[in-house]
Every structure is written in structure tokens, then in C-alpha cells.
């Protein structure tokens, strides 16, 4: 009986060994990898598709390893300010308390806008009475005071029917949530709580697409992929102004306000100085971002703004142009001039 048992063990050990060998015959050449050779990036899920595209091309071109995680803008900054990452992606500017954490750890950063996104407010395609939203109407719908009181469309605008409202929005850890609340309610993170929140925008698309009473907001790329299932609503920035639909043109020419937002990467100044790989990566990022940003369906910066970002990167000036608060509607060229 003893002898019957042994072949199984050998068989099993051989099986495991064979599996491992298969896996590693491929990676054999990489045996001596140094941890500093790897560029570590983490942060916003909104910026992720751009960075992923750049990382993919960069690895093909330069054979330098890059890893990208998705911890959200806030989670990314936490890691960045502990020195665990070289680059942090953000869908809103760095906040005061994050700047303090970075300062305490002695980490300086270079703020680089890389693309625009248009936060898109959508409704169910069967909803015919909403032609546009004014910022006031959106505020009435989303501000904290609306919780439990604003339940029908009529309460938002008397000319709309007395039918229920269902809300879908970004999860509170995302930069999207911070930016939307700042732009609409006037204070970041200030929102009613009784809505369906998800970090996964496909859940929001699904929610709005299947409920005639629904409205929600998410990034433009998700709207563009699902434009047959949900309908974008023109936004009226100021009373009397015409409603503007989100599109590449309206974001570029600055008429889609206040929901068009810049997306950023924050580069550790120390890593940029001491690690030539990080410097090469950012050079590559800025040189190729126009093409790659459009490929992943975001809005590229206009040429003059790219030039300004490039100059800013070359100057290696540290700090933020925002003073620790998400500011709405600031021009990138003006923003970069503020950083001394």
C-alpha cells in the first residue's frame, strides 16, 4: 500500500513542476529585474485608459517596465504621498490635505494636465420632456438639502411632469464625484446621499438605460460607447445661454461648461530627477498623448496647451496651480503660469 502512494506524489510534483516550467520558459530572460527599473503608476480609473495606452506603447518602444493600478484619485494620492508610486493619475487637482501628506513625507510633485474629459449628464432616451439642464436645476436635484425632499421632476422645474426621479452617480471615492459636486453644488463632496452610487460606470449606464425616471452622470467615454442606450442632456451654464451638448468641439472651445474637466498626472519630482526611466516615460507620454488620448476616446488638449504643458515639464517646476481646491473652468495655459 505504501508503494501505491508514492507514484501519486511524484506524479503531482512533476505536474506542478511542469506547469511552473511552462510559465517561466517565457520569462527567463528577465531574471535579473531591479525594483527601480519598474515605473509604478496608480490612481484614477478615469485617467487609466490613457496611461494604459501610453504604458503599452512605451514598453514596446523602450523595453522599460511599467505597472498601472486603479486605486481612484484619492487612493492614488495616498500611495503617491507615501512614496509607493512614481506617478499618480488624477481626475481632479490635488487637495490641500493630500498636499500636506506629501509635504510631510518630503515628496514634491510636478502637475501635468494631459487631456480633457466631459462629465456627461444623461437621461433615459424615452424621457422627452427634458430638453436641457441648467446648473441651478442640477444643483436643486443633487445638493445635500435635496435628500428625501426632491422626489419628482416637477419639484425641480414646474414645467416638468409630476413623476418620480431616480438618480445614478459616481461613488464618493472617485474624482468624478468630487468634480461634479464642486461644479454643480459649489462644494466638493457635497451631495445628497440617496442615489445609486457606483465606481463602475457601466452600472450607471445600465441603471439609466433601464429606467425612464432616471438621470445620472459619468465620463464622456462611457456616454460615447452607449449613446444608443442613454441620451446626453445639453447643459446651460448661465441663465439665458444656449444649452450645450458635450462633444470634442464644445470641450475644446470651452463652451461646455462647467462640466468639462482637465485630467492630470502628478509626477514625483524626485523620481523625475533621479530615475531616467521616469523621465523617459513622461517625455514619451507628452509626445504621444494627442494621438493616444483620441484613440481611447478622450479629448486631447489643443496644440498651444500641449506646448505649454511641455514647457512646464521641461522647466521641472514643482507644485500645483490650484491651491488645494478643485477649481472649475480654469484654462490650462493660465493654470501653468500660476506655478512659479
Amino acid at each position: 500500500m505504501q508503494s501505491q502512494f508514492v507514484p501519486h506524489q511524484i506524479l503531482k510534483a512533476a505536474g506542478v513542476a511542469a506547469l511552473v516550467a511552462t510559465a517561466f520558459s517565457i520569462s527567463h530572460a528577465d531574471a535579473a529585474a531591479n525594483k527601480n527599473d519598474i515605473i509604478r503608476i496608480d490612481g484614477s480609473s478615469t485617467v487609466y485608459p490613457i496611461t494604459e495606452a501610453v504604458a503599452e506603447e512605451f514598453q514596446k518602444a523602450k523595453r522599460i517596465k511599467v505597472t498601472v493600478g486603479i486605486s481612484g484619485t484619492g487612493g492614488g494620492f495616498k500611495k503617491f504621498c507615501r512614496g509607493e508610486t512614481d506617478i499618480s493619475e488624477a481626475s481632479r487637482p490635488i487637495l490641500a490635505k493630500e498636499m500636506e501628506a506629501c509635504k510631510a513625507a518630503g515628496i514634491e510633485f510636478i502637475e501635468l494636465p494631459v487631456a480633457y474629459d466631459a462629465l456627461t449628464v444623461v437621461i433615459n432616451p424615452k424621457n422627452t420632456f427634458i430638453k436641457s439642464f441648467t446648473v441651478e436645476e442640477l444643483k436643486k436635484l443633487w445638493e445635500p438639502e435635496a435628500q428625501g425632499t426632491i422626489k419628482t421632476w416637477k419639484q425641480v422645474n414646474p414645467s416638468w411632469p409630476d413623476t418620480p426621479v431616480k438618480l445614478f452617480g459616481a461613488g464618493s471615492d472617485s474624482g468624478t464625484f468630487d468634480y461634479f459636486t464642486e461644479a454643480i453644488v459649489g462644494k466638493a463632496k457635497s451631495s445628497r446621499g440617496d442615489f445609486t452610487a457606483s465606481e463602475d460606470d457601466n452600472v450607471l449606464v445600465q441603471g439609466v438605460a433601464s429606467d425612464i425616471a432616471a438621470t445620472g452622470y459619468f465620463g464622456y467615454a462611457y456616454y460615447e460607447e452607449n449613446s444608443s442606450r442613454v441620451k446626453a442632456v445639453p447643459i446651460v451654464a448661465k441663465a439665458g445661454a444656449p444649452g450645450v451638448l458635450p462633444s470634442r468641439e464644445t470641450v475644446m472651445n470651452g463652451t461646455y461648461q462647467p462640466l468639462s474637466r482637465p485630467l492630470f498626472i502628478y509626477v514625483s519630482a524626485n523620481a523625475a530627477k533621479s530615475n531616467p526611466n521616469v523621465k523617459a516615460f513622461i517625455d514619451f507620454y507628452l509626445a504621444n498623448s494627442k494621438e493616444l488620448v483620441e484613440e481611447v476616446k478622450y479629448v486631447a488638449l489643443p496644440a498651444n496647451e500641449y506646448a505649454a504643458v511641455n514647457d512646464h515639464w521641461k522647466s521641472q517646476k514643482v507644485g500645483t496651480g490650484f491651491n488645494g481646491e478643485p477649481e472649475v473652468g480654469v484654462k490650462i495655459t493660465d493654470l501653468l503660469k500660476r506655478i512659479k
Partner: protein
Amino acid sequence: MTTQASVLANLAEVRAMIRKHKRNDFIFSIIGLLALMLGLLTLFTLFIDLVATGYPRFSLDFLTNYPSRKAAHAGLLSAWVGSLLVMLVTFISAVPMGVAAGVYLEEYAPKNWFSDLIEINVTNLAGVPSIVYGLLALGLFVYGLGFGESILTAGLTLGLLILPIVIVNTRESIRGIPIAIREAAYAVGATKWQVVFHHVLHYASGGILTGVIIGMARAIGETAPIITIGALTFIAFLPPSPVSDVAPFINVEWLSSGFTVLPIQMFNWLSRPDHAFHINAAATGALIIVVTLLMNATAIWLRYRIRKNIKW
């Protein structure tokens, strides 16, 4: 005459009772079958749906390509290698410890309140939600012990997760060994260690292996604890190889490497705006189910093979 009549009447009564019981039997077996079918059909429908959706991606390229922004070129290479390495660490950490703990509790531990306490805790641990293990690992392995967001951390976390499963299974298999086997071994002068190692463990090995494989099959599909400890989403290179061509021929650098695993890659693809990635996610889901089913089938086969060779 009267007695005969009463017997006949009684017989009819008895027959009616037997019929009733048989009917109840039949009804219960139908209910049981329906309950079984409900579970199986759900899994089957889900699997067919995944296969039908993911079908266009079933190719060797899908297994040998790195993730990409282009859905049609994106593959699972870094994910399945990551899963394999994490499973290796899980296996090495959980199995010896789990089997040893099970043997100790069953064979050596004195029967007192302390053993009872441990026993209750082990059983409870098997029911703790996996996210709790993730949070524990984040505090203990990632920050406390400084292992970072690495394969080592992930493997140990999943090892903790399946440890109670391995322990409980080991104990149950050991309990299934007839007492006569031990008595026979003691009778010919075997020591306790010899009885445990040569006989009890040997005969219980089928059951123990089954427990180990079922535990591993659970671990391979876990997402929550792996997200908590910070698995990466885009990683287009493999960890350093555990075997090298210079002495000492093995290296441990891969343990501290960043990684991704199959369920994370699936989760990431599912949350993309582009529907082409949802096809990739479905294909990955089908692959995870196939791997899990294969592992479970191996467990059943091993148990059958080992049992067949044991004659007592």
C-alpha cells in the same frame, strides 16, 4: 371467517399506508431533484452565456498576449501566470500548516476546553467573509511585515483563507479511518508517530487532497481580498523567473513582484466603456470556471484512485 376479514381489512390499511409513504418518498425525491437542478442549471446557463459571449476570444493568443488597450489584442498572460504563482505560494503556505494542524487537533491535542475553543474558532474561520482576510492582510502583510503589494502577500492571504478548509477536511478524513487500523498497528508495536504517519495519514490522503484542491479552487476565483491588498491592473511583463540558470538555480525575487490575477483582469475589463472588452471578460470568466471544474474533477479522480488502492 371474522379473523380472515379483519386481516384482509388490516392488509388494505397497511397497503394504503405503504402507498402513502411511497408517494411521500417520490414527492421528496422530486423536490430534491428540483433543488439540485436549480443550482446546476443556474451554473450551466451562466457558463453557456459566458462561452457564447466570449467565444470569439478563445485562442492561443488570448493566453499568450499581455493586456492591451485594443480589446482584440488583449490577453491574459500576466494574469494567468500571476494566478499560478499566487496559487503556488498559497499551496506551499496552507497545505503543510493545515494538514499538520488537522493531525494535531485530531491525534495529539488533549480533549479540554482549550482544544474546544480552537475547534470552534477554526470552524468559524471557514465562514469569515473573504474581504476580512484582505483587510487583515493589508494591515499585517503589506504594512506590518513590509511584504508590500506582492505575490508573497497575495499567496499568504489566500493561504490564510483556505487554511480552515484544509484543517476541517483533514480532520474529517482522519476521523473516517476505522479504529481497528490503529489498533492493528499498535498491536504490532508501532509508535504513535508511525501509526499516524504510515497508516492514518496515508489512508486519509485521498480526503485530504480533496480538501486541498477544493480550497485552491476557491482561492483561484477570489477577487475581494486581492483587490484590498493592491493587485495591479495593467502589468505587461512577467515576474522574474523562480528558476535560474546559475547556482543556486532558484531565486525568490518573484515573491516581491507586483502582479495581477485572472479575476482582477476580468473585473477590469468588465468596467471598461468599450463593449469589446466585455467579450474578453466573458472569455476570462469561462476560463476561470473551466479551471475550477478541472480542479474539482481532479479532486474526485484522485480520491477515487487512492480509495481503490486501499484494501482493508
